C-alpha cells in the first residue's frame, strides 16, 4: 500500500513536471511550416509568404477578453507591416471546450472586424503545441532566412493590455522594426497575462 502511494505520488509529480515544462520554440529556433485552413476556405502556409521578410504569427481567438482588448492593435500591426512582416492569426482553441471559437464563429468574427490578414483554424492544436503557445494573444515574430523561418521574438504585443495609448513598450513593433533595419531585437521574450488556450479534453 505504501509502495502504491509513493508510486501515485511519483506519477503525480511527473505529471506536474510535464505540465510545467511545455515543449515549444525558443528564440533562435527554426519554426516548422504548417498548412491550416483560413476563414476564406483556402489553405495557408508560411511558405506562401515568398516576398516577405518574415511573419508575425499571433495565437488568438474570438472570445478571450485580452484578445478583444488587443484586436484593434492586431489589425493595426497587419496594416503597418503588410508588405514586410504580414500578420497570420491562428485560433487553436477547441470549439468543444469554447463554442465561441468554432470555424464558423471565426468566419463571422473576421468579417465583422474586417480582417485583411489570414485567420487560421488549428483544429488539431498541433501548431500551438509545436510553438509552445499557451495563451491568447501570444505572438511569435518569425524572421525569414533563405527558405526557413527563425523565431526572433516571443511574447506580448506591448506592455499595456488595457490601454494602447499608455503602452510605452511596443515589443512587437520594436522587434519587427529592428529586424527590418537589420538590427538585433531589443527585447526578444516577454510574458503577459492571457486566457489559456482551450485544449481538447484528453
Amino acid at each position, binding site marked *: 500500500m505504501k509502495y502504491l502511494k509513493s508510486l501515485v505520488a511519483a506519477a503525480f509529480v511527473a505529471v506536474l513536471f510535464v*505540465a510545467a515544462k511545455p515543449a515549444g520554440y525558443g528564440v533562435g529556433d527554426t519554426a516548422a511550416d504548417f498548412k491550416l485552413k483560413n476563414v476564406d476556405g483556402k489553405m495557408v502556409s508560411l511558405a506562401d509568404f515568398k516576398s516577405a521578410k518574415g511573419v508575425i504569427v499571433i495565437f488568438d481567438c474570438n472570445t478571450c477578453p485580452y484578445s478583444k482588448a488587443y484586436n484593434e492593435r492586431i489589425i493595426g500591426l497587419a496594416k503597418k507591416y503588410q508588405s514586410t512582416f504580414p500578420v497570420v492569426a491562428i485560433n487553436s482553441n477547441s470549439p468543444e471546450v469554447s463554442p465561441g471559437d468554432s470555424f464558423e464563429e471565426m468566419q463571422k468574427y473576421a468579417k465583422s472586424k474586417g480582417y485583411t490578414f489570414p485567420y487560421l483554424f488549428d483544429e488539431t492544436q498541433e501548431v500551438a503545441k509545436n510553438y509552445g503557445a499557451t*495563451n491568447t494573444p501570444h505572438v511569435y515574430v518569425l524572421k525569414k532566412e533563405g527558405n526557413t523561418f527563425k523565431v526572433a521574438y516571443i511574447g*506580448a504585443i506591448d506592455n499595456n493590455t488595457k490601454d494602447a495609448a499608455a503602452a510605452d513598450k511596443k515589443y512587437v513593433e520594436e522587434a519587427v522594426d529592428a529586424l527590418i533595419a537589420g538590427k538585433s531585437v531589443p527585447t526578444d521574450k516577454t510574458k*503577459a497575462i492571457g486566457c489559456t488556450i482551450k485544449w481538447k479534453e484528453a
Partner: protein
Amino acid sequence: MKHFSLTLFALLVAVCSLAQTKVIKYPVLDALMKKQEGPVQVINFWATWCGPCVKELPMFEQVNASNPAVKVTLINLDFSDKLDKVDAFIVRKNMKSDVLLLDEIDYNSWIDKVDKSWEGAIPATLIYNPATGKRVFTQHELKEGELEKLIASVQ
C-alpha cells in the same frame, strides 16, 4: 420586528464588508509569497471573465473554510476599473476568502517573480509553506482533489 431589522442590518453589514475587494500593487503580493511564518499560503490567480478560473473557485473556498492550517488568497486580475463587477461577483458567489485585485498592468515586470515557468495564462496557483520553504506552482485548471494533494506536497 426590531429583531428582524437588526438581523437585516447585520446582514447588510456582512454583505458590505464581504464586498470590499482590496486593490493592491505588486509589493503586497511579493510579501505574501515571502512570508517567513504562519499557515500554508495558497495563492490563486483568477479573473471574473475566466471560465476555468470561476469553475475552480469553490475548491479554494472549501479549503479556506475547512483547513485552518491554510490561508487562501485570491489574486484577481480584472482591470481595476471593473472593481464593482468583482465586488458584485464576490457577493453573488458568497465568497469568504481574501480577494485582492492586483492593479499591475505591465505584466512582464512581475510574472517571472511569481514563477519562472509561468507563461501568464490563468488560472494559475502558487502554494507556499513558510515552515518548510517548499513551493509548488501550477498553470492549469485544478481537478477535483488536486488542490489537497498540492497542499500535502509542501508539508
